[in-house]
């Protein structure tokens, strides 16, 4: 029962975020496909180019990969060993960020402990 109550609160919160996102899109005037990226991404655009991407090799502009560039993704199911470097890069970014946060956390704890000890001495 509690799970359902919490789930409904979560669904409400997520729905609120989605609603704000849709409002943002509406305010931006970006609901449907006009704009400079129209032909570059995930499917057909009605903007410049108005082109449907060849289904087997869609070009993705997702922000990850080369900055603001186009990266190529295969459309077949299943993992591609050829793209393993992409996975490794993601893991390295995550590991590096986590390491930085843990290092800062440990340093901060040590500092606080020393401060407390100095104050009590």
């Amino acid at each position, binding site marked *: 029962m509690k799970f359902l109550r*919490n789930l409904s609160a979560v669904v409400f919160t997520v729905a609120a*975020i989605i609603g704000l996102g849709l409002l943002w899109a509406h305010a931006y005037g*970006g609901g449907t*496909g006009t704009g400079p990226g129209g032909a570059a991404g995930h499917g057909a655009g009605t903007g410049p180019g108005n082109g449907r991407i060849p289904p087997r090799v869609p070009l993705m502009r997702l*922000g990850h990969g080369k900055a603001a560039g186009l990266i190529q993704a295969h459309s077949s199911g299943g993992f591609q060993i050829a793209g393993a470097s992409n996975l490794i890069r993601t893991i390295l970014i995550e590991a590096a*960020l*986590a*390491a930085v946060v843990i290092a800062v956390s440990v340093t901060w704890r040590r500092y606080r402990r020393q401060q407390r000890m100095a104050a009590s001495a």
Partner: protein
Amino acid sequence: MNPGPATRESSVTDPPVAAARRRVLARSRIDFWFDAVLLVTFTLAYSLRFTGIATHEWLGIGLGAALLVHLTLHWDWVVRATRRLLRRGGRERFIWLVTLLLLVSMTLCIMSGILISQVALPELGITLPASSFWRDVHGTTATLTLILVPVHVALDWRWIAGVARRLAARRSGEPR
């Protein structure tokens, strides 16, 4: 975001306390493995060139459902942390802020991903008009989520290390 350090599994002196500890450990174990699966799924979903577009999209949709469950499991923490926001120190506020940003970023990322879906939605018989706006939102929020996920995980590193230690000890049969 987590229920705190895992407690010892067995205590023969006080059965109710032992039962409560077992419940806490069981819950910690569920949280640990569920969160681990979420992290692996996100890492795979982000690596588009490794997964390909179809797997990327299905992983993203699965991640959306799993995110709802993850939030539901930790909703009590969300409510508690929000209530204590003004009273607590900088670290707690930072954790709360990271969690909120991650929730917004991941929700928008998954939502925009669904709206620009090329494989998953058409397979379900749904076609939506393409949008450069949602493509840009998807790219930006994906990058933001990639930054926030490891920060969110690392902020709980003591809890993760504690549960991992306990699980390893339990597997090797050491009494803890």
